[in-house]
């Protein structure tokens, strides 16, 4: 059974003056444990697709089932709770809270889920250890390099043992060496934890590392490859 099933998904941005059709009747299925790369030129709708599939953004039309549940049919609170428990997010610009240390950033999703502080901290440290940043746990984002920050983001995205990890240009702000390191880390985790990864990227080198590549053009899937 597909863990993600999107059917005839439309997303239109209405800016008042013009309407931008970002997704135009897109269909997609992702199997559990898959690691797929969503590729395509700027403005083709990659990030929009990720946002719509993860429930961060609303659909204009269509349906998205995650583990068979219509995520867009949920109200905001259950949808948020679902995200907190089942999903992890990695963003291009890291999106760490600048006022928190690495470990505090990582433990935040656990605290949101109601975990006790001590337990959350232990788990967060474990996650940081997993991404090789144990020595940096008490540093704030501003004191770390881009690669390190992205590793913290990865640790944060995995700390709650999510079913699906959404990664939007996870290497977009990194140099080649760091990019490959981060990607290898994601692959390793995918292999180890059998978690599903949806990675939005425009970097073919990154795409190549994924099992499946979806290429988008103007809001629809233009091509699909398997590695």
């Amino acid at each position, binding site marked *: 059974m597909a863990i993600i099933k999107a059917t005839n998904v439309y997303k239109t941005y209405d800016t008042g003056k013009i309407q931008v059709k970002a997704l135009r009747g897109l269909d997609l299925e992702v199997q559990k444990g898959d690691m797929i790369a969503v590729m395509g030129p700027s403005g083709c709708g990659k*990030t*929009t697709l990720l*946002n*719509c599939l*993860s429930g*961060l*953004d*609303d659909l204009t039309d269509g349906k998205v089932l995650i583990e068979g549940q219509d995520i867009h049919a949920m109200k*905001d*609170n259950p949808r*948020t*709770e679902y*995200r*907190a*428990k089942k999903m992890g*997010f990695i*963003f291009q*610009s890291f*999106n760490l*809270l*600048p*006022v*928190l240390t690495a470990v*505090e950033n990582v433990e*935040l*999703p656990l*605290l*949101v*889920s*109601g975990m006790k*502080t001590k337990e*959350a901290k232990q788990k967060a440290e474990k996650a940081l250890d997993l991404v090789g940043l144990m020595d940096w746990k008490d540093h704030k984002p*501003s*004191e770390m390099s881009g690669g390190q920050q992205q590793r913290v983001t990865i640790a*944060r995205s995995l700390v709650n043992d999510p079913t699906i990890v959404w990664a939007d240009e996870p290497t977009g702000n990194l140099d080649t060496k760091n990019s490959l390191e981060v990607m290898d880390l994601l692959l390793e985790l995918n292999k180890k934890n059998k978690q599903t990864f949806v990675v939005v990227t425009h970097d073919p080198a990154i795409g190549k590392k994924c099992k499946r590549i979806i290429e988008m053009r103007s809001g629809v899937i233009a091509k699909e490859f398997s590695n």
Partner: protein
Amino acid sequence: MDTTSFCLSFLVVIIIVIIAALALTNRIIFKMALRNFTRRKVQSVIVIAGLMIGTAIISSSLVVRDTMINTFEVDVYRSLGEVDEEIWGTETWTNALYYKYFSESIYDSISRNLTKLPEIDGVAPVIDDNGAVFNLNTMLGEPSAALLGLDSSVMRESSFGDLDGNGYYTDSLAEDEIAINSRLAEDMDASVGDEVQLSYGAKDPDNPMGTSFMKKNFTVAKIILEEDLYGKANYNQRKTIFFELDTLQNLFNRPREINKIWISNKGDYREGEKYTSDVNQTIKEELDNAIGISDLGLDFHSFDGNLVLSSTTTGIFPLQQAGHLLEAAKNSNATVMKGLMVPAITLNNLPIFGLNVMGVVSNDPVGPQIEDNSIYFLESVATTYGITNGSSVEIVTMNLEGIQTQTELQVFILPTEFEGMMPDEIRAVTLGVVDFDTSQYMLHGGAYSELMASFVMVSGLDNVTMDQLKDSVTEEMNEDLDSTILNLEVHELKSDNVEAAREGGEGLGTLFMIFGMFSIIAGVVLIINIFVMLSEERKSEMGMARAVGMKGKHLVRMYIFEGSLYAFVAAIVGALLGLFFGWAIIYAFEYIFQSIEEFGEESFNIPFYFTWTSIFVAFSIGLFITFITIIFASTRISKLNIIRAIRRIPEPRPPRAKKRVIYSGIIVVIIGLFLISMAFSTEDGGYYLAGLPLVILGFSIIAHKWVSIRAAMTAAGLVILFFMFGPIEFSFMEDWDFSGMTSFVFSGVFSVLGAILVVMFNSNILLNGLQKIFGRGKSTRAVLKTAISYPMDNKFKTGMTLGMFALIIFTVTVIAMIASMQASQGDMMLEQQSGGYDIIGVTNPRTPFENLTLETLPPELQNKVDQIEVLSQSIVTIIDYDREEVHITTYGQPIDTAKIEQYQLIGVSESFMENNGYSLLEWDEERYETERDAWNALDDNSSLCIVDGTKLAFSGISVGSPPPDFGGVYIGSKIVITDMGGQNRTRELEVIGIMDQSFFINAIIIKKDVVKNEYGGVDSMFVAKLKSGEDADAVAKEFEKNYLEHGLQTFDMKGIINTILSLSNNIMYLMEGFLGIGLLVGIAGIGIISYRNVIERRQQIGMLRAIGFKKSMVTKSFLIETSFITILAIFLGIILGIGIGWQIYKDGFQDSGVGFVIPWANLLIISVIAYIATLIFTIYPSLKASKIPPAEALRYIE
């Protein structure tokens, strides 16, 4: 335009020119600034709202000033009308000051010359006196009505004009008619046609210095309405009776005498004042020229071919005034005889009437040679009284002030040849002849004084005739005389009053400005915060701009352009908003005054008034403050690392202080030391309170080189707080004044700074504590973490916000505490100020009580009065004091430089000493165990005195105890007093007590007998305690009615004190309300910060939403953050406020026995209002933010 406005206009023009020039040469940067300004309209509005409040406070203070000046000025114009200057002098009559009468010929002479001047359009002779009036129809009266005599012919021809604007003049009154103003008519419920009885003092034909009390009935012929009298002769807005001048002169038995000259300058009643300085000198010269020997009451006449100079009015004159005659007589070898007639009242204890002891001395060797201490009786008198040659007699004589002297003299019988030389009219009133010196003693009672004479007779001249001598001496004397001899002065009445009005208004405006200072400081902090925030938010843009080639100075300019736009709009809006605040304050003022019965609704109107100059000044100051702050903030924020800015990475903190930081620490220390040195030179403790914290802070900045910033700043904060609140007092501070506004402002600012340093650099302790306490809930852990981490991460911004809000709460707390302590002082003050008495009564001293006791009261009063104490009054001057120990001051000035002030010498009876309830602030506790013992000591020792509370305070009735360390007299001070009548009745008094009241102003209280017997005191005052349940106001009126002829005026003491207390309390509440405007700064500040936080953190909100933050959690996070800052600020503000409040209590209230009051309810209300208002400001943006779909928030780029 005054100098301030001119300088400010100049400054504003300079600013505009600089900005315009920069804008023209940096068009693209200006365009960017303009775009930023208009980019987010809501934000711009909020920023402007925050920036404008300081300007609004300045503007409102100036509007209050304008209104008050206008109100006072209008009052002056209303009172004085066309009168710009006045000529009058005063005379002391026993214990009160009166306008001295002088000859109308002085007016004739002055008027003739002055009316020729183009600047003067009216000179008028006036009598301004008073009397008691009683309406026989309504049985209502006024004990002290003004009696104004005007010369209609002069009024008609000069600018003074008519009385009612309708051609009414007093010459239309018949001899038995009067015109009254409506104020008086209302008081005695009088209508036209009513018959009234006037009691007044007329000149005694038998005793030129005496007064006979007369009564006469008049019919009210005209009532002149107040509004018609506006700008007319509604002089001082008193209750006035108008007469034609000669009617009043006849009534007073003073033909051709007046006691005032009115002068009107050209222009109407507003414009005239401008010419006062031009004409003042001319008027004075004319006045000096007009005065001749006849005005002294001196005249030459011939007697048996001899030239005699004598007094035509008082019977005696200072011998010094005969100086020219004596000189001329000496030059022509003439014989001179000087004589003095002293009225005798008893001879060997037998009363005698109409006989005088005549003292003579002559340079004629063949004249009578009279032994010292002897009296040469006229034979006929000796026979009548059975006095024999060689015996001794005891004679009591009395001078014009009524002071008696007893003298024992050896008796001789005057040889008949000498008696035969006396003119019959002299012989008829002479008891006997004594030596001239002896007669001086009999007049003055042994005290040194000016030599007086009744006549000086010159005979046997060489070279000149008597007429020639008379003419030349008269000419010399006239030339020599100036207005001081008559004590006449030119009073610049209107300009002085207008000046006082301006000072009064200025003072009130300044008071508001000082109280608003905290809000203005908070406003400056807010401006810095706003700009730092704007820069944070635009950091990446700025980095980008720098990357593409924009220099740091361009960024500064961009911010200055944008800031100037905010500053201009905010200054305009603020200045106009200040109009509204000003109106609200005036409205509240008017309401407070009108709600007090005694002032009445009609009599206390404060018409709202402002000048555009004030609005412009407020605009300019507001603009200037904002502009300077913006330049400072812009320079600071433009220094950025391009890459860190683009990537929004915070600037790293230097691990240890760099040289630059150390230098800045040294500069702070130097500034601090400079301020401390100012404290030494000015003795204003406020500078110390600013200087010391700066020194501490400066050293901490330097210490940062060796220790962590946290340790350095925490230590600085703690030491500052210790110095502010700890028991630190150095001996060199003893004389410093810590009660001024500078102390209040600086202690507030720096204690808040100390507290903020401690809190901000130890925030982790606070944070952990809060998390332990509140972080137990499932969802609250994450929310609390983010909510507290944000403010604690940006310590500068949070510190500024906390400081701004805490400062305002601090001020409001202190004022609320003072107001409560003052209010709770009420009952105690009532008792202290009234001495337990209900009514105080004061008579016209010319008509004192004769035998006022409980038993002699009319029966209807006897039933209501429980106790009555009659006090004697006289006027004295302090001429010397114990210089080594005492810095005696009159109204705060050393006595050496102060004008001679008059003090009331109040004589009290034994029963008053025993029964009065006036407590003593201090007394000689070593000698007297209790306050009562100190009071009773006055009876045993007539060289002891107790002084009133105002000797230590300023002037007037002051509410609150005078500060005990004020440099006035204190226990053990020796003061030397003398009478005002020139009789040199001096006496040294030792102060053994200081009263804890200020109802009797400038009073020196001693034993009654001394006041009456030695200082001519009369029983002109009483205090009465009523039986319980009696209405003090009603009984007071009944007293007035019964003693109307004495001109008795009574006051319900407790009523007056209550009025003053409630007025003072209400004004404190008004101040509290005014400071509430500062709360708006704080609330607006926190609102702006919350709004900006939401915008700044949109992306992060998106991320939080993505990882599982629900909408409500986002909102909660912001609300907790705001609450954290607000509650912490309220807490700090209140704690520090209570700390300063405690010091104020110790210095100003503890001694008066009031308990320390913390107005919790009041503070709670203020805190809750402030807290809720800030939450409201936060809820809207945070709700809005939480509603944005996470994807959109993540996408958000400004």
